[in-house]
C-alpha cells in the first residue's frame, strides 16, 4: 500500500492531540485524492475503542505499539520505521508541535528520506504530494516535492483542521517492535508538568501579550494594568515563560495555546513564527516594539515603533479616562 501514515499523539489520559487529529483528517483527504489510504500510529497503552475512534477522522487502520513509551520521539521513530518497512507507506505526515518535529527528523535519518517542516498546505499533484512551506519569516512560500519514498511532512501548528466525518471505526493492528538501543537511553521522569496559575486566555476577547521587550519579570505589571483597563487578560511568549517571568498557562504559540481574540496587543513581542502561529487569527493586532525590524510589524494592523515603558502607562491612563468619561 502506498498510503499516508500519521502519528497520533495523546496525553497521559489517552486523549488525542488536536493537531494529530487534524493531521489524520488531512491525510484522509489527500489519500482520497491519491487513491490510497490513511493510517495512524499510536504508542502506549491506549484502549481498542479510543484507537478505533480515529476512524471517524479518516484513519482506515491504527497501528498500536503498546510497549513503546509516549512522550519521547525516538521510540516512535522505531515504531513508524517498522510499520513503513512492513506496509510500504509513501508519506508520513505530522501535525504541528514539538514531538512531530523530533519524530519526523529522526525518521528522515533512519529512512534516508526527504523532510519538509512548518508546512501550511499539502497538494496532490500528478499522483504525488507537494508540501507548501513559508520561509524567511513568511516572506516567500516554497513548493517542495520528494525524491523517492517516503516523503516526510511536518505541519505547522493548526495548519490542518480536525474534521469528523461519517467514518466507521478504524481497524486496530497491534505491532511488536524491538526498540533501538539508543532510544531506550532516554527516559521520561515527569511529563507535562504545569507551572503557574491557570489563566483562561483562550476565552478572553482582549489579550495583552508580553514578550522579552518588557525587559524583566516585574514589568509584566505594565501589561497587567493595561489588560485590566481594557477588560482583558495577559498572555506571554515562550521566551518569557521559559525565563520564569510568567506562568506557562498564559503562553501562546507552538508549545502553548492558540488564541483568536478581538484584540491582541503585543507588547515587546518580536513576532517570531512560533508565537505567530498561536495568535495570527486575532481580529485586530496592535504591536508596540522599539525594534522597527521586528517581524510582528509585517502582520499587525497597527504597529507602534517606540519604547513600551513610556507608552504603556500613558495608554493605560488614557483608556481608563476614556472609559470613565
Amino acid at each position, binding site marked *: 500500500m502506498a498510503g499516508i501514515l500519521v502519528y497520533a499523539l495523546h496525553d497521559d489520559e489517552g486523549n488525542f492531540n488536536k493537531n494529530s487529529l487534524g493531521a489524520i483528517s488531512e491525510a484522509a483527504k489527500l489519500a482520497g485524492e491519491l487513491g490510497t489510504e490513511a493510517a495512524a500510529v499510536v504508542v502506549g497503552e491506549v484502549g481498542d475503542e479510543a484507537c478505533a475512534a480515529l476512524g471517524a477522522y479518516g484513519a482506515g487502520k491504527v497501528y498500536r505499539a503498546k510497549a513503546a513509551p509516549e512522550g519521547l520521539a525516538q521510540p516512535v521513530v522505531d515504531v513508524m520505521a517498522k510499520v513503513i518497512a512492513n506496509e510500504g507507506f509513501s508519506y508520513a505526515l505530522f501535525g504541528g*508541535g514539538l514531538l512531530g518535529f523530533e519524530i519526523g527528523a529522526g525518521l528522515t535519518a533512519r529512512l534516508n528520506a*526527504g*523532510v519538509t517542516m512548518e508546512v501550511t498546505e499539502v497538494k496532490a499533484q500528478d499522483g504525488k504530494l507537494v508540501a507548501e512551506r513559508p520561509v524567511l519569516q513568511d516572506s516567500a512560500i516554497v513548493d517542495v516535492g520528494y525524491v523517492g519514498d517516503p516523503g516526510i511532512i511536518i505541519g505547522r501548528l493548526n495548519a490542518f483542521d480536525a474534521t469528523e466525518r461519517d467514518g466507521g471505526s478504524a481497524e486496530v493492528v497491534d505491532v511488536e517492535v524491538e526498540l533501538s538501543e539508543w532510544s531506550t537511553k532516554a527516559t521520561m521522569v515527569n511529563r507535562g508538568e504545569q507551572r503557574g496559575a491557570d489563566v483562561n486566555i483562550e476565552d478572553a476577547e482582549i489579550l495583552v501579550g508580553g514578550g522579552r521587550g518588557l525587559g524583566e519579570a516585574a514589568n509584566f505589571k505594565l501589561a497587567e494594568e493595561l489588560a485590566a483597563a481594557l477588560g482583558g487578560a495577559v498572555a506571554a511568549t515562550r521566551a518569557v515563560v521559559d525565563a520564569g517571568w510568567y506562568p506557562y498557562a498564559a503562553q501562546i504559540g507552538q508549545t502553548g495555546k492558540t488564541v483568536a481574540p478581538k484584540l491582541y496587543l503585543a507588547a515587546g513581542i518580536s513576532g517570531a513564527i512560533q508565537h505567530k502561529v498561536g495568535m495570527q487569527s486575532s481580529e485586530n493586532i496592535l504591536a508596540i516594539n522599539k525594534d522597527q*525590524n521586528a517581524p510582528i510589524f509585517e502582520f499587525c494592523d497597527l504597529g*507602534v515603533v517606540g519604547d513600551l515603558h513610556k507608552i504603556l502607562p500613558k495608554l493605560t491612563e488614557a483608556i481608563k479616562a476614556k472609559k470613565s468619561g
Partner: protein
Amino acid sequence: MKEVPDAAVQKRIDASTMRLDRSGEKNLNPFDTHGIEAAMQIREGGAVEVDEIVAVTMGPESAVRALHKAVALGADRSVHLTDQELAGSDVCATGYALAKTLESEQPDLVLLGQQSDDGECYTIGAVVADHLKMPSLTQVIKIDISDGKLVCERQAEYGYDTVEVQLPAVISVGDAINEPRYPSLKAIMGAKKKPLETYATSDVGIEADSVGETGSKTQVLAVNPPPEKEAGEIIEDEDTNETVEKIVAWLDERKLI
C-alpha cells in the same frame, strides 16, 4: 555551529538556484551561542570533567569566521567541513554529513541551538542523533548532570517534561537555557590562533552521492510570494501623548474600548 546571514540583512531566495541568497554580511547563528554557553557552564559546573569543547560547522569558506566567534566564546578548537560537493544539501543530507564529521570526533555530548536563524528547521539535532545512534532531546531549557547522566527539562505539547538522558547524547537547547556571555577582547584576539581543522567530504568518509543536490531527497519546485495581506499602519513614537491619542482613536474606531 552554523553561519547565517546577519539579522540586519534582507533575506531572499535566489530564483536561479532556488536556494537562500547568502551574499551580504554573515554571522554565527545566534541560537548556537546558547549551545556554547551550555557547554561552558557544564565545564564550569564541575559535575563532570570536560576535556575539551570543539566547535563544528559545515559551510563555505567564509564559515571560518563563525568558528572564530565560537572559539572566542569558549570553544577550545574547531572543525570545519567544507566542500563544493556539499552545496545544496537538504536537511537529510546535511544531517548525514554533520553526523559523519562528528563521528570522527567521538563526542560525549553534542550540543546544538534549537534552530538556525535562516533555515528555521528545528530538526538537525534529531537527524544527527539517529545517524550517531545516540539518544536525543530538542528544545531543552535546563540541563543538570548527575552520575554521568543528563537530567533535562523541556517544554512540549502538554507542559514541561523532565527527561533523563544517558551519555553520549545529542541535545538541542532552547534560547531560554542561558544568557550567552560576551567574549573578552583577549579571547577575540586569540581566536584565530586556536587549532582549526578543515575537512573535505572524503576526509570523514562522506559518500559524495549522499550529499549536495544529488543526495538530497527534497526538491524545491517553486518559490512564490505569500498571499497579499493589506499592510497595517505603522507609526513612530515621537511624542508619546500624541501616539497614545492615535492608539485610543484606533481602538475606539474598532469598538474595542
